[in-house]
């Protein structure tokens, strides 16, 4: 029923490689094969070298990162998340390239001791239909 379920990603030409990987439990980030620059969200032309024709492929990354910042969500702007309140969202900088960030839930929850720079690793939350959304968990020792 509209409004009661969580949004599922609509796969498109730019995002197909990302969501195919997550469905298989892997994190992959779009990378320019000419200069090695990672981009997220995926782009249609490399922001670093602008090579044409673009040579952009999804490459596996470690799934490790650090917390750039976080918030505890207390209002569900998306009704499908109302039952999950309060929950933590983190902006995670991936270790492969610091300016590549993903937003994901921090599964440790709002009572966890969270700090800037804390190390996290990716986990996956399943959605109906076989899709999976990346989330993160604290790995303990600060990086």
């Amino acid at each position, binding site marked *: 029923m509209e409004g009661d379920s969580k949004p599922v990603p609509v796969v498109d030409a730019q995002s197909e490689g990302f*969501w195919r990987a997550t469905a298989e439990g892997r994190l992959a980030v779009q990378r320019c094969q000419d200069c090695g620059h990672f981009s997220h*969200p995926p782009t249609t032309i490399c*922001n670093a070298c602008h090579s044409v024709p673009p040579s952009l492929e999804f490459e596996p990354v470690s799934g490790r990162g650090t917390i750039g910042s976080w918030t505890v969500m207390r209002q569900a702007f*998306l009704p499908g998340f109302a039952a999950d309140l309060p929950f933590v969202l983190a902006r995670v900088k991936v270790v492969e390239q610091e300016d590549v*960030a993903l937003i994901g839930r921090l599964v440790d929850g709002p009572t966890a001791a969270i700090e800037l720079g804390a190390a996290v690793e990716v986990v996956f939350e399943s959605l109906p239909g076989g899709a999976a959304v990346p989330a993160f968990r604290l790995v303990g020792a600060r990086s």
Partner: protein
Amino acid sequence: MSGRFTGRNEVAIVGYAQSPIERHSRLTLGALTIETCLQAIADAGLQPEQIDGFTTGSILPAAGGHGSVDGVDIVTANWVAETLGTHARWLCGFQGYGQLPGSVILATEAILAGSADYVLLHRALSNPRRGYHQNPMTSAAGGAQWVAPQGFWGAPSGIAFSYNEYLQRSDATRDDMADVVVGLRANGAEIPWSYWHGQPITVEDYMSARMIADPVCILDCDIPIDGAAAFVLTSAERAADLPNAPVYVSGFAQGNPTAASLGMAWSLDDVREGSARTAEMLWEHTGLTRDDIDHPQLYDGFSPFIWYWLEALGYCGPGEAAQFLRDDSSKRLDILHSGGALGNGRMHGVPQMLECYLQLSGRAGPRQLDGKRVGLACHSSANFGGVVVYSAERF
């Protein structure tokens, strides 16, 4: 290559109107806007048929997937021109954020180029009845797929990231922010057209307000409203023949996008780097320095923007905005005097621009401050929006 503005003080604001700011107007947004535009034209001493240029920035409210019917949910420049039925030589809407500085820039350049003699600039904001950021989407396409399946939606949640990072990396606290918001509401309470007229708040009200996305509470966010404002701009030469004291456009700057953004979940470093560039361009464009500005009106649609702008404009160093305000016990800058978005309602940069216009033209009535000659009106965050400098004199 110089970044200096060759049209400095060649274009002026010559009239204005501001509608009442209400949760839900008795009028449709289109009717409210036309009423306000006609008042602004009359205020400038002009007739509607003399207006030959129209501009606005009409985006938002769209975050919640609301309708965007022209004349109902939004009001474009084209809609105003069509409805007034005047002969427009120049019609141009601004696309992007920092909508108000963006449309002031368009209007100024059109007048400088001779594309229009008298430009009507309006801003119309509506309050969707379903909740501004509320969105019942069950599938997330395009940019939304990178945030919504993860549970991230709404500008307040985005701002929470850079604001939390600010608190974590400095000695600033939510108690400091309470003083900012209480100050804005105190000033807004004095403004007759404000939604919050006669409704100041206390620090206790702020600290007990409902949390939205930590550390953002409901009182850190401007309240969605129905409202319209309009300004008339023309050349300095033509302005001399009109009834009101002109307020000149001295220069401006716009934020450039930084890295690919996930909603508004900027890193604090991205905010600072982008903001510093905006300020650098502003000083180069105007030929002024911070010390020349005696009425800076900082944007506050989300309260942390006040801190970001203080840093951007060089009033304090990184992380020192809260301390700066604590030390500024005389409130010599009057930075909150407009009441801002938090003290007026979600008018998107209008309170700051209107405050500059009213103070510099000497039309602020009981709210008039002494000795204000050069104002600065910000909109949105400094890394993202824009800023215009206004002057009471041509220099």
